[in-house]
């Protein structure tokens, strides 16, 4: 494992762990955020009810659209060389579908970042990456900024998935600053051991003034859980994707910016690779592997 080219490439930029936590005795987790980041909020029931009534109108509208699409019974079948643009960054409403976090929001560091509309009407993920470690006693390394889209959802706040089973590639039209960014495809599972399953890929950007269309096959994404790359790798389940995110992290402090035109998916009929990493299965009587 330690001699594999994947591990060597990743250990140069992202070396785990970022923080020290007490040893856990079990895999069971009470909630998805974890004890360090769990926030206690006091709820006012009257405000909640008023908010709920306001949301009801939007949700009923969404539900009507869902039902009309469902009863049309005409699922879209994509042909080779078809693409679908899933996110564009033209307007501020579209930017509201993305959540921008940095380590200073979680009291883990001093970086700051923002997702704004650039003067070309494209999304601009920019900020300052600060690798100074706060004197917490728990944190070992610091410096990360992240944008993540809101979870795919159905009407009445029900969780849903992005179904990209018919596609083979992820395409992004971006203009970076030469840094390498990490693409994260979160596939939150139902059970708590699968809550933090994220498929990653390191996107290298060119710093130039020209736009770059990155066409990344889904077979190249590798599985990690809570930031740690898993030994037992799996091809990404394309019908269970919940979020997509872009992370800027590393050991080089300084400003960063990534301009994004669109993020979409593409079906390449000639792409036959199932998974780029080890696919052989060792029989269960062979231990230690």
């Amino acid at each position: 494992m330690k001699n594999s080219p994947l591990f060597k490439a990743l250990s140069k930029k992202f070396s785990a762990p970022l923080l020290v936590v007490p040893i856990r005795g079990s895999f069971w987790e009470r909630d998805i955020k974890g004890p360090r980041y769990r926030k206690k909020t006091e709820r006012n029931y009257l405000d909640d009810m008023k908010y709920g009534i306001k949301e009801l109108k939007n949700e009923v509208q969404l539900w009507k659209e869902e039902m009309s699409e469902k009863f049309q019974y005409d699922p879209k079948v994509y042909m080779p060389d078809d693409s679908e643009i899933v996110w564009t960054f033209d307007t501020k409403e579209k930017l509201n579908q993305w959540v921008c976090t940095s380590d200073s929001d979680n009291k883990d560091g001093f970086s700051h970042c923002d997702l704004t509309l650039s003067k070309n009407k494209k999304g601009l993920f920019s900020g300052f990456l600060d690798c100074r470690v706060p004197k917490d006693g728990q944190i070992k390394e610091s410096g990360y900024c992240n944008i993540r889209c809101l979870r795919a959802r159905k009407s009445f706040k029900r969780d849903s998935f992005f179904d990209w089973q018919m596609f083979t590639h992820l395409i992004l039209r971006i203009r970076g600053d030469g840094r390498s960014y990490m693409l994260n495809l979160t596939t939150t599972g139902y059970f708590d051991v699968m809550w933090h399953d994220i498929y990653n890929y390191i996107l290298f950007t060119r710093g130039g003034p020209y736009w770059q269309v990155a066409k990344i096959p889904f077979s190249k994404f590798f599985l990690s859980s809570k930031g740690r790359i898993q030994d037992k790798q799996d091809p990404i389940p394309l019908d269970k994707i919940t979020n997509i995110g872009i992370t800027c992290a590393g050991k080089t402090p300084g400003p960063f910016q990534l301009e994004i035109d669109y993020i979409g998916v593409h079906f390449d009929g000639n792409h036959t690779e199932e998974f780029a990493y080890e696919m052989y299965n060792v029989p269960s009587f062979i231990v230690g592997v």
Partner: protein
Amino acid sequence: MLTLPIINLFSLPLILGTMITMSSSSWLMAWMGLEMNLMGFIPLISTHSNKRASEASLKYFLIQTIASSTFLFSFLLSSSFSIIQFTMMTPWMIPFMVILTLSVKLGAAPFHMWLPTVAEGLSWTNCLILMSWQKMAPLSIISMIFPKNPLIIIIATLSAISGSMGGLNQTSLRKILAFSSISHMAWMLSSMLISKMLWLFYIFIYSIIISSIILCFAPFNMLHINQVSTNQNKKLNSLITINLLSLGGLPPFLGFLPKWLIMFYLLQMNMFLMVSILIISTLINLYYYTRISYSSLLLINSNNKWMKTKTPPLTKQLPLSMISLFGLITSMLTFTLL
């Protein structure tokens, strides 16, 4: 990991369990056969290499055990009323409960929601076992004990409607075949109103057709509609079309024969509404079967010159598909000659 020793070990309880249920003379042995079948099937489907397969096998295990335990409870309850068999003294709820729990095990509506999600997570071979062999044991219990229960009519109707309507909005092949298995369940249950052996004939022919379909999809690793439509192998496309049309019950193919028999005898029993619901649901099923194959035969005809992939010869697929193609004609000829 599914090695040959594991397959050899666990296929024995899988087969024997169903045999025990089908040849049992007591409730307990029938239940025991169901459990043995489950114990044999679970190791075959829960591979640790694939996250999705282990999740599907967990869901399958939970559903089947809940159904088995409720089935055990319901027949124990019946024996508290009458020790030997059902008599006029037993309340109507007990056959109700038994049939409902067995329909959970079968994946018949209204308890069919688990079948598409579980089928999606399994490999093609396990999908085939799930849709053909796993249906035998619960259907045999229903046919032996309650063949002419009115609840069967309700379950058959619901299965026909939900199997046809549910499959319309799907693009994943395994989910489509799962919904088609739900609607074929409707035909099998309605055949029990006619005779005790007709469902066996139906499931035998259904198993032949579905194994020839899966034999076409599995070696080429086809999991989605657009993979079938972009397939350039013309022989394979025609075999897939023949088998899918046979599954839909179109006349020159074998799949029409069991449906024809069931329709004929149900009409003789004056069950016109039932037959019309079954036929309409079959028509809807046929729509989404042809949607899989028509684009490969009629619309897309591109051959890449620079991409040379070696496709394996169709030696396994051909014999079974020939049964689908010529089975009806040969069986009719033999019946007329005899």
